[in-house]
């Protein structure tokens, strides 16, 4: 029913190039990259620093626009969308997990998770509460609902971030180096949790990492180097 070429693809990237301008110097970040991500995948984008992982994720996450090429997210050509529509797309279709957790410091755990639902304005108070508490239960933080982010450990914060990313039931969750700021044990737990969510919620997960151990958890791996895809497995 969707019109893009691969009907199972939730993300379809076709021949994109992204250049950054540093003064007069053009720094190429991505070179003619094409990628199809089918719905429900648990995919890792791997590569050394500066290989273009974050850029690729930014393009998929609709927070950045490609210099050329086509990015289709859930059947929407992002080039044709206004800034407002892109924001809406992010709000309803994409969840974000950040390397530095990026929780809103003045809100408590419950409020942080609830925040995207408030922006969505579709659910009533009761439904929001049920959904938030359910997710907090799933990430194991139901006892910490009223804590402020500063009162939590790094692993706990990232769990809150995962709950926040999933609370709107997005089709895609993007995670940029989700374990980079965590010790390996906690990092493993976080990946476990993401995998669990992928299984239970059938949410597509796309995460970047340069940690081989984390990478090994992925169902498929896209290897980037110097802004080009080296290998897809």
């Amino acid at each position, binding site marked *: 029913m969707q019109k893009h070429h691969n009907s199972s693809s939730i993300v379809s990237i076709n021949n994109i190039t992204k250049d950054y301008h540093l003064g007069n110097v053009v720094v190429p970040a991505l070179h003619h990259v094409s990628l199809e991500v089918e719905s429900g995948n648990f995919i890792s984008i791997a590569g050394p620093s500066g290989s273009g992982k974050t850029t690729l994720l930014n393009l998929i996450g609709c927070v950045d626009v490609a210099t050329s090429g086509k990015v289709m997210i859930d059947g929407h050509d992002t080039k044709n969308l206004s800034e407002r529509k892109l924001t809406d797309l992010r*709000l309803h279709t994409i969840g974000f997990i950040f390397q530095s957790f990026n929780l809103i410091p003045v809100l408590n755990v419950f409020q942080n998770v609830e*925040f995207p639902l408030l922006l969505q304005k579709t659910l*009533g108070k009761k439904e929001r509460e049920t959904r938030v508490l359910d997710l907090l239960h799933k990430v194991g933080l139901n006892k910490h609902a009223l804590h402020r982010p500063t009162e939590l450990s790094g692993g706990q914060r990232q769990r809150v971030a995962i709950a926040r990313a999933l609370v709107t039931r997005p089709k895609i969750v993007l995670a940029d180096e989700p374990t980079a700021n965590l010790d390996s044990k906690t990092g493993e737990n976080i990946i476990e949790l993401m995998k669990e969510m992928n299984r239970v919620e059938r949410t597509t997960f796309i995460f970047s990492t340069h940690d081989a151990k984390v990478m090994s958890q992925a169902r498929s791996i896209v290897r980037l180097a110097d802004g080009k895809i080296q290998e897809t497995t």
Partner: protein
Amino acid sequence: MNFNTNELRVLFQIAFRNLFSSFLNVIIGGIILVGTFFFVVGSSLLNNMDTAMSRSIIGSIGGHLQVYSDQSKDPITLFDNWQRPDLAVIPDFSKVKDGLAKIDNIKSVVPMGINTAFVAYGNTADLVLERLRKSIDAKIHGDHSTANLEKIDSLKSHVQQILKVIHDGMANIGTITNSGTVDPQSLRDLEKAESKDFWASFDRDPLNHLEFLENKIASLIPDADMVFLSYVGTDLGLFQRSFDRMEVVDGQTVPNGMRGLLISKYIYEHQFKVKTAFRLDQIHEALGVTGKTIAKDPDLQQLVKQNRTQTRDIVFQLDPISNAKLATKLKANLNSNENDLSKLLADFFTTTDANFNERYDFFYKEIAPAIELYRIRPGDFLTIKAFTKNGFVQALNLKVYGTFQFKGLEKSGLAGSTSLMDLVSFRDLYGYLSPDKLAEMNEIKKQAHVKTVDRDKVESELFGGDSIVGKANEKRINDDADLAEAKSKTRDSQNASSTITQNDIDHGIVLNAAVLLKNPALIQQTMKDILATSKQEQLGLKVSTWQQAAGNIGQFIYVAKAALYTAVFIIFVVALVIINNAVMMATLQRVREIGTMRAIGAQRSFVLQMVLTESVLLGIVFGSIGTILGALCVHWLGIKGIPAGNEFLYFFFSGPRLYPTLSVLSLFFSMFIIVLVTTISALYPAIIATRVSPVEAMQADE
């Protein structure tokens, strides 16, 4: 549904959480707090002063509007006692009265003429000698009653007492200057008057002796005085009905149809009261109202010193019997062995904070009844002299019926120094001749064979033909008789006790008129109506509001308000700049947070609202605290009252203390300003914040 409230809730939650998260916010809050505090207190005070002052002006002589001739050279000013505006005459008030009566909103039109005259009266010696002369006249005319004879004896010894005081005074001058400052002739006269021979021969030829005393001695006393009297000539009955703040203090109002004068209580106290008593009153009030002390205040010390050194005012007034009586009382009161009254009084008036009230009471209980506390009393006649428009001096004997004051303005020299006079007497003093009078004058001139002589014809008229001079000579004796008759006629027509009618009042000149309105809110419309009527009926009027008519005083409140608003404006401009900077800094510090929100799906508008809400909330929270503190302060002042430290403030406060009430308008206005200022100052940083890219969220920690 409740979607918007949800978003609002999260906005407020974020904003409120951020409120106290930075120290900078507390500083900004402090500035806003101080700004609103001053604004609320200041504007409440000024609003109250404004109403109090407008009450003062409107309720005393201003009325809501003043009309005057459009031929006038100056705009009308009511309280410039030293420089009267040059107003042209409105020839017939009745036309103005009838014309303006057609305007619906006008309650009454009170005719007025403001002028200044001077009043001269004799010194204490003159008064005593006058009384002595009266008693002696009575004796000559057959009053040999014991009472009268005793009175003569008492007055005679009073005169001798005065002579002694004068002599002592001269001796003092002599020792101080050690030279002949004292006129030797005066000294000889004084010695003669004091001699036993003089008094031994007094009863044989009292009139000549009196004349000597009156001519030679009374003039040696320098306490004769001239008082300037500002007055409003008006329809006294209408005036009292129209100006509700006027009240009679001593005596009575001028009865209907009578000429007369009501002296302002302020002037009565300042100019006509025995100086010593007036100074005591001043000290009494300063100690009671303003909380000053003699020990610390140099002005009060000066007053005490003057009272100590100027006891002569009182000693002069006492005959030997009263003198001795008072000396005995003072000796007892002061526990002193001194016998000389002057020294006893000097001692008595050396008051301190500790004994002042007791001595003040003693003064009014024991000393005041023995002396004439005021130089004129209700019922006395006062000779008023004024320079007419034509430059000659016009004098009038007017009965003083009483004193009056404007409620709330008792202590204000600005509004309180104006006395009230009937309009007809004003016209006489103003030197305006009505057509009738002009005809009468011409009649007198004709009778006296005075004719107007052209300047170039003077010579020929005076020295031209023998025939004219000769004729004139023939009639000279008769001329004198005619002149005397004419003179008495004019005097009759100016006799102050002659009655006047409403017709006399209404038909004649006025300089201006106060207009009182039924609905003061319609003042602008009424002004237009008056001008239209004036044009239609050719009344030739100009109109001023009471503010304009009050001159500089009326402007004062505006100046004060301008100053306050400027100060508040500066505070808020400073606040604006600081808030702007602070919000900018806060925004830059929160780029990651804002980027995250944007990435998660917050629209730009949400970010804009968030930053604005934060700033406005900051303003509202601290502004409210400032407003509440300001309101409490005004409330506290309203209970305690702000003392009017000087006469000016007395006028502005319309009373001895201002009890400010909170102006609700200023509360709303202060909150409005706060919201405005904080919104404006946060607007730019908020717009910057909306430009934060969601990419910022992706940046790894440095």
